[in-house]
């Protein structure tokens, strides 16, 4: 099998490489970090409010817990929530969009009505509402991802439907229809591969939405209850007056990791878009 030339284009794009390296760094940091740096993020392992030092590279919080350990584990679970969010939101958005686009008629009207309703009710508010009413024992990483996922799919459904509508009139679809293929096979086998890069970009945006959404829910006090994510670290810092006590090493690294992981993914999608989208390709 030969490697398509577009892959070379991608590897020649400097923005893509920068984004990819940053993201790989974040992933490695979160996965391997705990092997090298073995402190428990919940352990009161040192004196409280220590500024960064040799012993505590990112200092300790007000309860003497190690912040570097919190960041390593927090990044891992923030990414976990992000990916899970994408895995929940993607299938819903794709299936609803594809079915609406291919079936048309009353099915289309109903599905798009539903989509527009969910789209118009702000996702973050809906997520706060659902998370706030769940008993706190139930708020695991998975449930938080689920809550963000089921409130964030509508824009993908609309986008997939629009793509399907524009592809539906192509010749290869008529050929498939003449061959007696059903709508479902046409949608998922003939049309979906055509929007693969689109779907990849949606995945990345959902991961980002999950990471940022989780951080928001955590800050308002309805994040994962017994877990640790970057949002939870920021929540601790905010509620335990890290600002007033000027413990900058507590809240700066957590935010930096959020921005690093989400921005590196955004840089990757922008680069992919530039390589694959002829209208954006350089002159």
């Amino acid at each position: 099998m030969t490697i398509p030339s577009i892959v070379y284009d991608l590897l020649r794009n400097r923005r893509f490489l920068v984004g990819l390296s940053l993201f790989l760094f974040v992933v490695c940091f979160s996965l391997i970090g705990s092997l090298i740096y073995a402190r428990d993020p919940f352990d009161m392992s040192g004196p409280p409010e220590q500024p960064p030092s040799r012993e505590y590279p990112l200092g300790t919080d007000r309860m003497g817990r190690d912040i570097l350990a919190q960041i390593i584990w927090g990044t891992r679970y923030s990414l976990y929530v992000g990916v899970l969010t994408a895995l929940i939101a993607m299938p819903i958005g794709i299936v609803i969009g594809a079915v609406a686009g291919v079936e048309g008629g009353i099915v289309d009207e109903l599905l798009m009505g539903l989509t527009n309703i969910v789209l118009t009710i702000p996702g973050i508010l809906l997520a706060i509402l659902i998370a706030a009413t769940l008993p706190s024992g139930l708020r695991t990483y998975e449930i938080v991802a689920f809550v963000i996922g089921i409130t964030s799919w509508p824009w993908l459904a609309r986008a997939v439907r629009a793509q399907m509508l524009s592809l539906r009139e192509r010749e290869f679809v008529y050929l498939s229809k003449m061959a007696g293929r059903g709508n479902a096979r046409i949608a998922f086998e003939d049309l979906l591969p055509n929007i693969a890069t689109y779907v990849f970009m949606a995945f990345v945006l959902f991961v980002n939405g999950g990471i940022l959404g989780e951080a928001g829910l955590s800050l308002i006090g309805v994040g994962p209850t017994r877990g640790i994510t970057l949002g939870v670290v920021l929540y601790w810092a905010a509620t335990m007056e890290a600002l007033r006590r000027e413990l900058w090493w507590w809240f700066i690294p957590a935010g930096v990791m959020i921005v690093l992981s989400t921005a590196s993914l955004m840089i990757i999608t922008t680069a992919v878009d530039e390589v694959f989208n002829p209208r954006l390709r350089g002159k």
Partner: protein
Amino acid sequence: MISKSLAKYLGFRLAFLLVTYIVALSIVFIMLRLVPTNPVDRLITQLLQLNPNITPEQLKEYMKAYYALFELDKPLWMQYITYLSKAFRGDLGFSYINVGRRVSDIIMSALPWTLFLVVPATLAAWFVGNSIGAYAGYKRGSLFEKTLLIVSLILSQTPYYWLAMLLLFAFAYRLNIFPPGQAYPPTMLPSLTPQFIQAALYHYILPFLSIFIAGLGGWAIGMRVLTIYELGSDYILFTEALGAKDSIVFRYVFRNSMIPQVTGLALSLGGAVGGALLTEIVFSYPGMGYVLNRAIMQTDYPVVQGVFVILIATLFLANFLVDFVYALIDPRIRIGGEKV
């Protein structure tokens, strides 16, 4: 003059928003009825602690009165109907925690602060972000465009409230230039005196900046791409071939790429309000986010419910307003004709 097609479009949007509002209200109702809390039990316990000599008959009277106050004495479907009809009239019941206080009073003292924060900051971010995004798209390949893209990518992924924390830490606690949070000095009462307005504006700068800066990036990124698309379209190539001045070409491109951004504004309002709620918590700014946060912590569900009912209603009104503006600037809707 409002044309027929414009009226039809607006009527359709209004009907859609009404249906969606009822759906949203129903979701809020269902979610909050799933929570197993009974405010009456809590109040009765408090009552017994305050007055242990209460007779069982009196206790029964109290319970009846409390159930009636929170409207929990009726069947669920009747609660739903009264809730819906009252929600449209702005009657949101009573707080579970601050007994006797109307939810609408609590919210009406918070809503102006949130609007005062969100509306100017979002509009400013939208306008400035789109302008620099359009300019970057127009100056494709320049250093300005490349720098702006990276900066915008980072800004668009920066959580509002983390930016708020950074600004608060740097300008309030470290440099002591701005006050550390809240909307006005605790020694003052809200009034329309020049001193109070001055103090409020002084407290306003940091929260405003955090929402403004966090909002810029997304608009700039979107507008850059839209401008690049527009620049590649046939009518622009033709205009350029005719030898039109750069400023004229830019104006054409800008006006046409702004149209999707107006719809984008409507869709982004929800996210902006969500971000503002979180920013308010960081700044202890006495708006809806602060009220919501406290109500969630105290399990004061009528207040939580009220915050959502009012926020969603406000957002939908804003949505409708944006639709109206959209209809005015897009000739395809204003005059009618080809369907988009």
